[in-house]
């Protein structure tokens, strides 16, 4: 069906097939659409067999990092220890709103994937962590969990398999950083959402100190289709010349675009066709100026770069950016890039957990400089200072929030430097910083 727009003929709806179809939300409706057949099948399989199928399928994590899911699962061995599965439903990367639609429209699809994933990693308990603002998603997933318990799908004897699978929903309370996997685990344990130093990695010591696997909502919702149809079926999605990026992927599209919404395409899709055909291109009379293709933490593309990009992990890297979470933010020719990058850095400054000084100080400092350039009070020296701070914020902290703040500044300065310089040239004030270079001096 597609939501909010009907599926485009060039889309490949697997996960999004029932978006907008309220009938798919109920347990009966989900079963009528083939739901829980994959879980039934999986509960009769050995966990290692499931891990192998997922590994063979080529599925990679859809939360942003793109780590191979089957390999992540294979870290979990039958060691007799208590294991946990965490489902990351903290979706809060600006530009990304795909997990929200999965949870709102196909909550049983998620519950099925979570239960299946728990069995596959030798866990009896799984937690679905959903960001606090997603009230409708929380209601839908909670209801699905309750109905699944009532029907014996979850619980001490899941689907009559003799295996225990418990699934619980945990509501967040407003913090972008809780989408970072170890911050999410701290939050689940009733702590401040500070990311943890790795190692130890979650597979060794994760939630409550136990071996833990954490997967994104989209990743877990995909797995039942792979288990049901086989790894070979899944491998048909992707471009023939790139076996590293397999499957369909949801892309959220927002900003200055004619048809914002979620689109599901096979990886390897041409970005130009995606933007202009599926999403309808820019608004009437406007031109696309820039695109952030994978959520706010990935480098900005110019229109030309975006039009030549390919929508898969390797294709986006080849274009100097990343596939990330698949959150596409479009900027048209009305937008001032300085203003919008300043708004992004302010987001990261607000969301820094503040445990690493490079991030705590860097995000705030970079925001102050960006906002003074935005307000016509910047100097040419500020541009060098921005790059220096950005360098000191990258690769030096416990998690990548700090790097994510530096990214739009560095890529923005590289690709839209003329906009920064124009703002500075318009600065009417006197030079007050010793040694500051002034573009307007000539």
């Amino acid at each position, binding site marked *: 069906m597609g939501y*909010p727009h009907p599926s485009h003929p060039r889309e490949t709806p697997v996960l999004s097939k029932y978006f907008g179809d309220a009938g798919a939300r109920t347990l009966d409706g989900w079963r009528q659409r083939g739901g829980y057949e994959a879980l039934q099948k999986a509960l009769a399989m050995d966990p290692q067999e499931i891990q192998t199928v997922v590994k063979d399928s080529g599925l990679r994590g859809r939360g942003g990092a793109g780590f191979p899911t089957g390999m992540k699962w294979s870290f979990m061995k039958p060691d007799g220890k208590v294991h946990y599965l965490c489902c990351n439903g903290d*979706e*809060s*990367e*600006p*530009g*990304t*709103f795909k997990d*929200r639609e999965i949870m709102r429209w196909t909550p049983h699809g998620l519950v099925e994937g979570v239960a299946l994933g728990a069995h596959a990693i030798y866990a009896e308990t799984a937690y679905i962590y959903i*960001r*606090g*603002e*997603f*009230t*409708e998603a929380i209601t839908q997933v909670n209801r699905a969990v309750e109905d699944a318990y009532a029907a014996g799908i979850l619980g001490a004897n899941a689907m009559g398999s003799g295996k225990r699978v*418990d699934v*619980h929903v*945990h*509501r*967040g*309370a*407003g*913090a*972008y950083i809780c989408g970072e996997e170890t911050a999410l685990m701290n*939050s*689940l*344990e*009733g*702590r*401040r*959402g500070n990311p943890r130093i790795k190692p130890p990695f979650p597979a060794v010591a994760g939630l*409550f100190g136990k071996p833990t696997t954490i997967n994104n909502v989209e990743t877990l919702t995909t797995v039942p289709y792979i288990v049901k149809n086989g790894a070979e079926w899944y491998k048909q999605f992707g471009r023939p010349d790139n076996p590293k990026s397999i499957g369909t992927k949801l892309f*959220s599209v*927002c*900003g*200055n675009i004619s048809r*914002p919404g*979620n689109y599901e395409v096979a990886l390897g899709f041409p970005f130009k066709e995606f933007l202009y055909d599926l999403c309808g291109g820019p608004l009437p009379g406007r031109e696309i100026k820039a695109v952030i293709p994978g959520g*706010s933490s990935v480098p900005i593309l110019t229109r030309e770069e975006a039009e030549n990009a390919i929508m898969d992990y390797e294709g986006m890297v080849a274009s100097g950016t990343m596939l990330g979470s698949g*959150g596409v*933010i479009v*900027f048209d020719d009305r*937008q001032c890039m300085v203003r*919008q990058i300043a*708004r*992004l850095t*302010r*987001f990261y*400054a*607000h*969301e*820094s*957990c*503040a445990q690493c000084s490079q991030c*705590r100080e860097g*995000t*705030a400092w970079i*925001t*102050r400089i960006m*906002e003074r350039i935005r307000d016509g009070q910047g100097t040419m020296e500020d541009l060098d200072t921005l790059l220096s701070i950005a360098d000191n914020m990258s690769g030096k902290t416990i998690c990548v929030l700090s790097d994510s703040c530096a990214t739009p500044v560095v890529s923005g300065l590289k690709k839209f430097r003329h906009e920064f310089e124009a703002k500075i040239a318009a600065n009417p004030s006197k030079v007050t910083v010793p040694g500051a270079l002034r573009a307007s001096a000539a």
Partner: protein
Amino acid sequence: MSHGPSASGGALVAAPPHGHHHDEPHEPVFVGETRAALDVILSRYPTKQAALLPALWMLQDARGWVSEKGIEEVAAVLEITPAYVKGVVSFYTMYHQHPVGRHFIQVCTTTPCNVCGAEDVVKSFLEHTGCGDLGLTSDDGKYTVIEVECLGACGFATPVMINNDFIESVTPESVPRILSELK
């Protein structure tokens, strides 16, 4: 969460209203059905502390905000210290550390909404609620308006949360109608 006013131009949390609330009597929240509901939640985790975020939600749902006395009650129920609970409360943006208006209005102004005109939606809410400024509560106690960072509904700019309700595609022009439909 962590930064001084220098990093953020607008109020992202509700400001404390005039007067103190520390002396107000606190009716225990975790009694009867609420206590039973908490016990069900506790059974889902291997530690009591893991029920902290859910317990704080129950407190806020019952009282409208998270008071010092409420923090003390949560701490006692979960066998942790009030200072620890306060440290957690202050980390998360959704727990109100001060009373707020009956309709708590959060307008997303992060970049994807910003490029679609979210700042004008904020202005419209401030104008039509009489709140004056971000984070302040209107004189009649009905409204508090804040800017919020990415609500995760970027394709439906501008999304606005009013208490637990999510409203999509809000424009400056639709604000009066939205306010008139609030109970």
